[in-house]
């Protein structure tokens, strides 16, 4: 499964998308994101499965993305 990785430089910052990892489940996704992206001294880090990301719109494709 692909997980998207997000992090923040400092408290109060917007969460920033910093990359992705493949992992067989949540637990290893967290470990792998940590091992792959932790060198930049982030304040916090999050992962979420990519298949839970749903596109709402994209100006080139339309103001609302329905079924894809």
């Amino acid at each position, binding site marked *: 499964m*692909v997980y998207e990785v997000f992090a923040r430089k400092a408290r109060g910052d917007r969460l920033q998308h910093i990359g*992705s*990892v493949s992992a067989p489940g949540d637990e290893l996704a967290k470990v792998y994101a940590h*091992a792959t992206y932790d060198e930049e001294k982030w304040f916090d880090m999050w992962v979420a499965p990519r298949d839970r990301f749903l596109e709402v719109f994209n100006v080139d494709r339309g103001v609302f993305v329905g079924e894809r």
Partner: protein
Amino acid sequence: MSPFNDDELKQKVREGFLLESPDEMTEGYRKAIVTQLTVQGDTELISAPAYWMAARDAPSNNTQVTVVAIIQDELAHANIAYRLLEDMGVSREKLVYEREPAQFKHPYGFDQPLENWAEMVVANGFFDRAGYTLLSDVFSNTSYGPLKRALVKVDLEENFHLRHGENWMRRLSKAGGEARAKVQRAIDWMFPMTVEWFGLPDDRKRHSDQLDYRLKGLTNDQLRQEWMSHTVALCKRNGFRAPAHRDDATGRYVLEYPFPCRYDAAAKRWLFDEGEITWDEVFDRWKARGPMNERYVESIRRSHASVSRLLGAA
């Protein structure tokens, strides 16, 4: 399906347009970026076994920490490239675990054995400098947004690797004796190898898709010059010989040996005396790959198939 045709896309990227998704790529663009990312991923990936060969025998606990940190970075960078490729429908599984070793697209330099600490640090000073030169250009110029963002991390870390190499070259130069002599021997084979890495000279290169699609900004010769501007100076200030110098009249770096030329991989020696060869001969050598090609690729695959079988059949 790309909302653009090829000419529109080329025009748009020339004006600074960034693609954000593989859906926006034309077939030509997709092909060009897949090639670029495959070379990038393979180079980072195969640098890991090459560096590990030297790292596992590094002189001390502290030096082992540093080179394993470098290996960790390289693997993470490889993974970043392969993950971007997966988004374009290229299977990482196939790329990493199923290709013939000779099909990997990393430079010939990483098919060589790194046999002592001098070769490790010169690899950091030269090979990682080449990687940094190439990737900084991609970072500044690429029209693919996800790659541009990923390269922030990659650039920072590659910069550390080459600084590690340069720092150690300085220390070993001061140390003198056998340590210094081994650095010079490493430079003797690794300098021409990295010069060659940048590929065909501009006057022989056919037109470049990667430039048209704005996947990079500089030509092979421009990149080669940029690399030499750092490495020739690095050698000079530490009292090492490098077979190139800066021509004061033109400001360009000039090689002091026939280019391209033949290489004796077993002896780790360039056969300058045999004169210039053709680029076809170089391509043949690259295609045949270097002495460590299979071992390096196999080392990455040691347990993948057996563990997948064991766990996968659940």
